[in-house]
């Protein structure tokens, strides 16, 4: 892990989902950090701007859209590319995500290659 590699952050209350992301980006030259709840993620995100942030929606406590709204109040997170990945496929949630500047709204389940492709689309990275 080097400081020059982009950082991908995932917030999802499913440890298995985090493993799925981690496995998907393993061939890529990225740093990967997973958090299992907004409460765990917020202290990190208050200090760091990831190159790409994946957010689940249904999580314990604060949901993913509320977390995104909270993050956008930090000056350094106003333009962070955020992808919502959720099992909830509702227009109301898509609309809110769009208003909050999410760059994509994806429905679970996602395949390894789909995750890699979307990371490569939004972050300038190389293969290991």
């Amino acid at each position, binding site marked *: 892990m080097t400081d020059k590699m982009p950082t991908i952050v995932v917030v999802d209350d499913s*440890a298995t989902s985090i493993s799925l992301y981690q496995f998907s980006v393993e061939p890529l030259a990225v740093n990967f950090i997973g958090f299992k709840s907004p409460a765990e993620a917020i202290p990190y995100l208050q200090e760091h701007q990831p190159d790409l942030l994946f957010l689940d929606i*249904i*999580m314990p406590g604060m949901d993913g859209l509320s977390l995104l709204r909270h993050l956008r109040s930090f000056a350094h997170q106003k333009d962070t590319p955020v992808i919502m990945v959720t099992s909830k*496929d509702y227009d*109301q949630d898509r609309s809110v995500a769009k208003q909050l500047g999410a760059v994509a709204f994806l429905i*679970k*389940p996602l395949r390894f290659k789909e995750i890699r492709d979307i990371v490569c689309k939004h972050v300038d990275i190389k293969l290991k």
Partner: protein
Amino acid sequence: MSVNALNYIRFWGVRGSYPAPFGSHMRVGGNTSCVELRVDGHLLICDGGSGIIPLGNSLMAQQNIKEVTIILTHYHWDHISGLPFFVPAFVPGWKVNIYGPGDNQQDIERCISGQMRDPYFPVEVENWMADVNYLKSKNSQLEYGPFRIETFNVHHPGSTFGYRIHVHGKTIVYASDDELSFIDQSIENRRDELEPQEFELIKAMQEEEREHSLDMIRNAHVFIHDAQYTPEDYAKKRGWGHSCYIDTANFAIDANIKQLYLFHADPNYDDTKIENLHRETIKLIHERGSNMDCYIAREGFVVDIDKL
């Protein structure tokens, strides 16, 4: 069941989507979501659908209680449309506490007051003369009198809560709007595309998410949950944010629920259809070898909390 029981749950509105004041629907009831919990003289109200209107009127006919706490699952009309007509909110000397999804108390007030602004309603929330307080939770928990309330997020459009309520050693879970099996179908739809390793991980993720959902309701004495659709209607209305009664019953059995109340009745279903749906649910419960009791949530029905 007589309301002379001191501590009870009472259903004032059980219908989903919109009120259904039709003669063919009166055994189940036509008002939209509102459930009262009354314990030790404290009144907790789940949702402010049209059922909160007769509840409010009944409160004006008594003198002992002058404070209520209303917990809203979300702000779709069928869950808030009774609030502009909730009389205690307009009466000085009353205290009305309101909680619901939102980033802060101002957010909750904004969501409530929006339906009472010109041109939608002639009277604004500023005319509420009760002491109205918008509550903030701490770590997704609230306390009110003997009630300890935990919130959790459910599968429905927008931010929508379920509530796990602890009182007098009993647990009552209220999740009026919740689509249980959406991800199951999403995974099934992609089954043929997935490589074996992907499928194993995705199935493990599905099981983990199901366990998380079960943990929110596990071992509850009373589980009041969305059971709006038959399987035939759910096939056409997948993605509308509501559950088929079969999924609700299986979910409740897996969570070791003592009493299941089939809630959020579809406004298009008459009494006969809902009673048939209930019979099918009982049959399913028996086929699974479960001892769980199952009831239709009917308007006016009362449950003695201390006898659970």
